[in-house]
């Protein structure tokens, strides 16, 4: 079946990660918002982690596609 599941997961993680990172950046120093998460900007950290995971997944998917194409040609 022609679906490499790493691509949708990578895309989803990148999109959600960027959303959370931007929100985390705009709320830096928002003491009220982050009092419940022990003054940690958890949106920023979770967002960045998701972007990294997303990009790794997309990169491995692309690498695999390239090597398959090379083999075929």
């Amino acid at each position, binding site marked *: *079946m022609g679906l490499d599941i790493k691509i*949708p997961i990578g*895309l*989803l993680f990148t999109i959600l990660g960027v959303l959370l990172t931007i*929100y985390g950046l705009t709320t830096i120093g928002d003491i009220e918002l982050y009092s419940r998460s*022990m003054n940690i900007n*958890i*949106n920023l950290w*979770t967002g960045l982690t*998701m972007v990294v995971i997303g990009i790794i997944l997309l990169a491995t998917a692309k690498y695999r596609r390239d090597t398959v194409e090379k083999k075929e040609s």
Partner: protein
Amino acid sequence: MDITFNLSWLDYTIMIVYFAFVLGIGWVLKKYMRSATDFLEAGRSIPAWVAGLAFIATNLGALEVIGMAANGAKYGLMTVHFYFIGAIPGMILLGIFMMPFYYGSKARSVPEYLKLRFDEKTRGFNAISFAVMTIFASGISMYALAMLMEVLLGWNFNFSLMISAIIVLIYVYMGGLSSAIYNEVLQFFLIVIGFAPLVVLGLINIGGWDGLKEALNTTAVANGFEESAYMHSWQNTGSPDSNPMGVGWFGVAMGLGLVLGCGYWCINFLVVQRAMAANSMSAARRTPLIGAIPKMFIPYLVIIPGMIAIALTYMPDSGFQLPVKGDSFDYDKAIPMLLGKYFPTGVLGLGLTALMASFMSGMAGNVTAFNTVWTYDIYQSYINPDKSDKHYLRVGQLTTVVGVIVSIGAAYMARFFNNIMDFLQLVFAFINAPLFATFVLGMFWKRATGHGAFYGLVSGTLAAAIHHGLTSPEGSHMLIKGGWLGTVVHYYPSEMAQNFWTAVYAFTACFMITVLVSVTTKQLKTNEQLTGLVWALTPRIKEDGVPWFRSPEILAVIVGIIAIAFTIYWW
């Protein structure tokens, strides 16, 4: 403590993006659905690592996440038994010994294997009970999710029920088992990233692993146990009275490890179906073993939050308290309350999305397993055989719709008759407990006969019912928890102990009666018919040209070593 959340536009956006992706995957896969095999068996084309993650994700439903956190709060670290002795031996057994028969026999479902190996009545009994059970299981989890959304978000019960059911319906209708499996992998990633921040924040809050240990000492003493009772898995199992679960090591090893664990992971079609969809025999055998590796780390994600919740409850100045229900805590609220305590806007949306993802992966698993069993083992076998493949593809698709509608009905039944659901779950526990004995004898003893299997199953089910009817967990007054045969001959320290021992009795009864009836009846199957179905009559698989790191045996050894290391670490 009020746990109604206020969601912002960001939280809703995260949920909507997730919904778009699950539906999108179904839509992409739609064009590959050309035959009944594509729809109901994923065309046997799934790569091993995808099948492996789906294998554990389908088990990681919302009820499992909420329930295992609840167990973590109630029983402490002993809950890890469900992830080690209650899972790993079963997964290794499935991958190394049992998968060759399932995959090699070309059976399309677990009941169909029973028909090939034994006879029609054994298959019919298994197929019908399994079909009814999956429908109720998906109904119950739907009910649980809708209840949670009602309590947490103030969403209308009917609205959350419909929206979650319709999304699962659409993506399974479009892409069948493939769509369910690929989505389960996506959902697995989301569940991990959604709950991980909860664990990190909880541990920071309580002062790390050492802080948790110390806080749980207070909890243990307050509950009348030794200080370390909540932080060990085996150490306090010498006597059932010295640990919060109320079970001794023998009950854990035999009841949970042998019967319930192996019985679930080796023969429940819900999970076995994922391995049977793999793209080769080798991939099918590796599926449960690949799944076993992340499985061993899931306790960090679901059990530790429960332990944090109970530890905080017993800390005087934590400002956190699990709500009380009856004469104990409402342990099921552990995860939702921690989400509310720690998550600000943003990750809150992510955490709730993870909860929904876990619900969907569990429900889609039930729906796809029901589709296959209904279409092949009931419809094609008893109602309308000898039709074209296109016909069965259509039936499979329509079954998805009917299955979801019936489970919505079951969800409303659960809402209005709570006890009926408990009762049904109990009945299914009776039916399932002895099944593992039937499979062990079927696969490894060629003399086991159809009559033997059928009467063994029936007597195992009866033994479970009788044992349950004559015993009761201490301090329980409800008939549904046992003792409904009038006299109670034994009291167990906990419900968990009663469950484990019910399973042991059911297994033993089924095993003995199957052997007894088999030796007194004629084997109606010839050796040729049993080739590929029984150990002694099946040529060993030679995997030439498979690199060592893809060998199921090597993988099983690695899994075993990690499991032993964890067991010692958490002793």
